[in-house]
């Protein structure tokens, strides 16, 4: 460590500089900032510092320890790869906006994981939403604009819940420090958990993810997939490790999205659903709360950023090169995008947890932890989900985009910087997958070794995956596999995008009708009362004339009488 400084500062400075520079200078800044920031974190001393007293509470800007440092390294790495992938953007694609907000977004994520208290966390929590929404809006379509707005509303809501929870906890415990919270039945703990849950795409709160990521720019989705949900995972790991409810929530999260993923047409939305599935593994690991479980969860978060980023990069490349992303429009791209296809397969193998690929080294930790704790049903669900994820992310994505039926689209591999970014990720997937003990396991927060490569693990996992693939082949042969259709599938968002507007519309018109009726009655009643009191002016339409000023003074009179009555009655 050269300079002891909260890491977000460098990224924020970089974000501002990216906004005012251009050309080579900006590109150098974008690549140099994550590298310098990441190197600066190496060998950093643990312990809270940069503490400030505000309004009787201590704000802690920088608290490096095992858990936060892992995410610190990860976010620098993700920012570097993402920036490299987005380096080619031109002004027509909103380069300045995207470059700048990506760095600010990464900085917010770093600020959140190194925050030592809930209020600082909240500030960065909201900044995460406000900096990242531009990566959606930069797409420039009407649809992306509205999606971005929904995204913003949901994340601001999550922030408000976090703040409310923090305030209530400050009230209860007198401190806003962010340590292990746990569900002790207090309202504050619940609010904070719900807030984290929204950001972590818990079931029923997951729809913002599958709604917004597919509408972001080709490069933006890479950043989006890296930071927001992982900050939530960090928060859960810090605050709610060992909360049993999370085991079951996680299990549900691994299972239900894969059904949606099978029938989804937009391939980036498929990745969104598979992302929820992967987060499910992490949430389960955190819920188990053992050293192995939490280690597995954060290790999986680390790997997920890389391989999910890689998959989003390959799909982003497809989108950029062909302008399409629906499975029904694509196919046969391996002929003209061979490198992208190869990287996609590496990413698919990693997410499917093939031995020698990164997912294997971390997903098996969570599953082993579930077994150790005796959660048989959960283990079976996870196993089901592990097979399912291979089915939709491991096979469906590469197959429908790059193989399958030839769509007739002829294009080329994307620009060099995009290929290099994908290449780095692919190499990382393989290196971490092959040598987990020399790489990833060294930075895990808790002690306790784990050896993924024994014969049993390798054999059973390979069996699971191969027979999952066999099912795919069989389903294709017998034409059972659902065709890719130009369609969407309704999800929870249906409630707020379809039902709610109609209910609000209905209630609104009902309210306005009732309101109109009540008001009409009240006005005519008042008219009659006043007309009686001023018989000599009745012909002049007294009320209509004086209503505006008169109504104010009537209020004065009413209140005066009300107060006097009230006070004299004391």
């Amino acid at each position, binding site marked *: 460590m050269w300079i002891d400084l909260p890491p977000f500062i460098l990224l924020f400075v970089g974000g501002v500089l990216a906004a005012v520079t251009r050309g080579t200078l900006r590109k150098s800044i974008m690549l140099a900032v994550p590298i310098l920031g990441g190197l600066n974190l190496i060998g950093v001393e643990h312990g809270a510092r940069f503490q400030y007293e*505000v*309004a009787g509470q201590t704000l802690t800007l920088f608290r490096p320890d095992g858990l936060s440092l892992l995410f610190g390294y990860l976010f620098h790495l993700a920012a570097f790869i993402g920036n490299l992938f987005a380096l080619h953007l031109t002004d027509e694609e909103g380069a300045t906006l995207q470059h700048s907000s990506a760095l600010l977004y990464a900085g917010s994520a770093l600020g959140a994981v190194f925050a030592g208290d809930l*209020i600082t966390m*909240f*500030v960065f929590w*909201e900044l995460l939403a406000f900096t990242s929404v531009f990566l959606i809006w930069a797409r420039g379509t009407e649809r992306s*604009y509205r999606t971005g707005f929904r995204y913003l509303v949901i994340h*601001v*809501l999550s922030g*408000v819940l976090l*703040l*409310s929870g923090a*305030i*209530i906890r*400050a*009230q209860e415990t007198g401190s806003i420090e962010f340590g292990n919270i746990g569900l002790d039945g207090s*309202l504050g703990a619940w609010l904070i958990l719900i807030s984290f849950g929204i950001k972590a795409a818990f079931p029923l709160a997951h729809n913002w993810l599958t709604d917004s990521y597919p509408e972001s720019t080709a490069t933006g989705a890479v950043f989006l997939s890296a930071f927001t949900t992982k900050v939530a995972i960090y928060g859960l790991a810090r605050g709610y490790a060992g909360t049993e409810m999370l085991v079951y929530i996680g299990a549900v999260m691994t299972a239900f999205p894969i059904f949606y993923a099978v029938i989804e047409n937009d391939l980036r939305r498929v990745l969104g659903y598979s992302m929820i599935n992967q987060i499910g593994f992490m949430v389960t690991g955190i819920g188990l709360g053992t050293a192995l479980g939490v280690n597995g969860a954060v290790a999986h978060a680390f790997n997920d950023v890389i391989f999910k980023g890689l998959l989003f990069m390959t799909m982003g490349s497809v989108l950029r090169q062909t302008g399409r992303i629906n499975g029904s429009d694509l196919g046969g791209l391996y002929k003209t995008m061979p490198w992208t296809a190869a990287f996609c397969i590496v990413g698919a193998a990693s997410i499917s947890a093939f031995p020698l690929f990164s997912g294997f080294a971390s997903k098996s930790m969570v599953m082993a932890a579930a077994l150790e704790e005796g959660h048989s049903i959960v283990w079976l669900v996870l196993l089901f989900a592990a097979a399912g994820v291979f089915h939709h992310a491991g096979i469906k994505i590469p197959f429908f985009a790059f193989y399958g039926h030839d769509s007739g689209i002829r294009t080329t591999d994307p620009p060099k910087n995009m290929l290099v970014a994908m290449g780095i990720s692919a190499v990382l997937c393989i290196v971490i997958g092959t040598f987990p003990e020399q790489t990833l396991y060294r930075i895990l927060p808790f002690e306790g070794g784990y050896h993924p490569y024994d014969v049993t693990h390798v054999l059973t996992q390979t069996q699971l995956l191969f027979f999952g693939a066999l099912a795919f082949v069989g389903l294709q042969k017998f034409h059972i596999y659902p065709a890719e259709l130009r369609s969407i599938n309704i999800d929870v968002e249906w409630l707020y995008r379809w039902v709610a507007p109609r209910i609000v519309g209905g209630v609104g018109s009902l309210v306005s009708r009732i309101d109109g009726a009540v008001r009409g009655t009240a006005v005519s009643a008042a008219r009659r009362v006043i007309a009686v009191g001023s018989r000599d002016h009745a012909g002049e339409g007294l009320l209509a004339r004086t209503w*505006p*000023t008169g*109504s*104010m*003074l009537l*209020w*004065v009179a009413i*209140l*005066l009488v009300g*107060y*006097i009555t*009230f*006070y*004299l009655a*004391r």
Partner: protein
Amino acid sequence: MSDHLPVLLVVVPLIAAPIAALIRSVRLSWLIACGASWWALYAAWGLLSRVRGGEVISYALGGWPAPYGIEYRVDAVNAWVILIVAAIASVATPYAYQSVRREVESDRVSLFYSAWILCLTGLLGISVTGDVFNVFVFLEISSLSAYALISLGQDRRALTSAYQYLIMGSIGATFIVIGIGLMYIMTGTLNMMDLSERLPAVMDTRAIPVAFAFLTVGFSLKLALFPLHLWLPNAYTFAPSAVTAFIAATATKVAVYMMLRFFFTVFGAAFAFDVMQVDLILLPLALVAILSTSLVAIHQQNVKRLLAYSSVAQIGYMILGVSLASVAGLTAGLLHLFNHALMKGALFMAMGCVMYRVGSVRIDAMAGLGKKMPWTMAAFVVGGLSIIGVPLTVGFISKWYLVQAALAAGLWWVAALVMVGSLMAVIYIWRVVEVAYLSPAPDGDGVAEAPLAMLIPLWVLVAANVYFGVNAGLTTEVATRAAEILMGVTS
């Protein structure tokens, strides 16, 4: 001289006002106004630094000792309010120069500054005096000059709103005089401290609750507490921009101070809250104010009007803090008094800049202003974040203390409603931001950034919004001390 600060605080602007009217030179009368407001700021700071430690300054006007003569009495509570008024005035007066040149006919400008200084005098006078009838006199000085200032707006509706404000304001002031008269009849004194000693003996009569009722309604009218706020939106909308910024940031705050002074010092918290249980009325009205006027604000097309309704909602926050009748609640209310002055001042000043360049403050006129007037709209965004209560702005500090106070009182649903109010603020601020930053600008209208003379005062307030949002030490310390004095708690 520092011994005479309490009276000089008022006398200097009082003398400056006719001079400004007589000079008939735009620049000179403006300079006099600047001088008067800066003097007030200097004096306010002098007073505050003396009373911060807990000292109470008592100044006998004309050498007649209290309770026979008029007493000016300064403690942390009114030193705080005086500082708010003077600080806003000393930022708003420099700002007014360009804005007024554009919006007010030039032969009226020196009279405008005369009324401006008088309004300042009145507000300072209300805050500094320890004599209840003197409060009324200064109240009328500030109100009458405010009516005149509002009527100088460009739109002819400025005249009708000023007229309406005049009727409502005079009724409110007369109610206050009736309340004061009844108290005087019962006790024979007008000095606040004297009254607070003599009132308990006559508390059981019927006259005192009636006086209390008249005062409550009068103050509610003056501070625009729902549902007596109806005069405010029009007055703020059609007044010249500088006047809106000045009055919105100060007049209602001073009215809140009046209410606090009467409730807590004159009647005493025990009488007002335990016997009269005024909190039973104030709390629901404050909550309705927050929610209903925020809802109205969401639907406004004119941004000044939108901000005016938002002001009514913000007054609701202050009264909410007061109605909790605890040191924590009062601290929150007093903090918001200061903080709201900063944020509303900044927002209305930003709108004044828009008015200066665009000539309209309707939402549809804001299209593309984020690019054309970047500094102005950035200021609006920061002010808006403050209204919402985003951390690192003063708005957050107020909300934090308010929610804490509500939770401490066990009213968690009140805390939740405060949050709902914040969410509604997000919506109405967003409507403006959305149009300014996301709608394309109409072509070729050549709108440029506002002149520096307006931007600098605006950004001074914006900077204050952030500075006091990060470093809330001074504000919370003084507000807590003031709340302790009002509640009669000695620390």
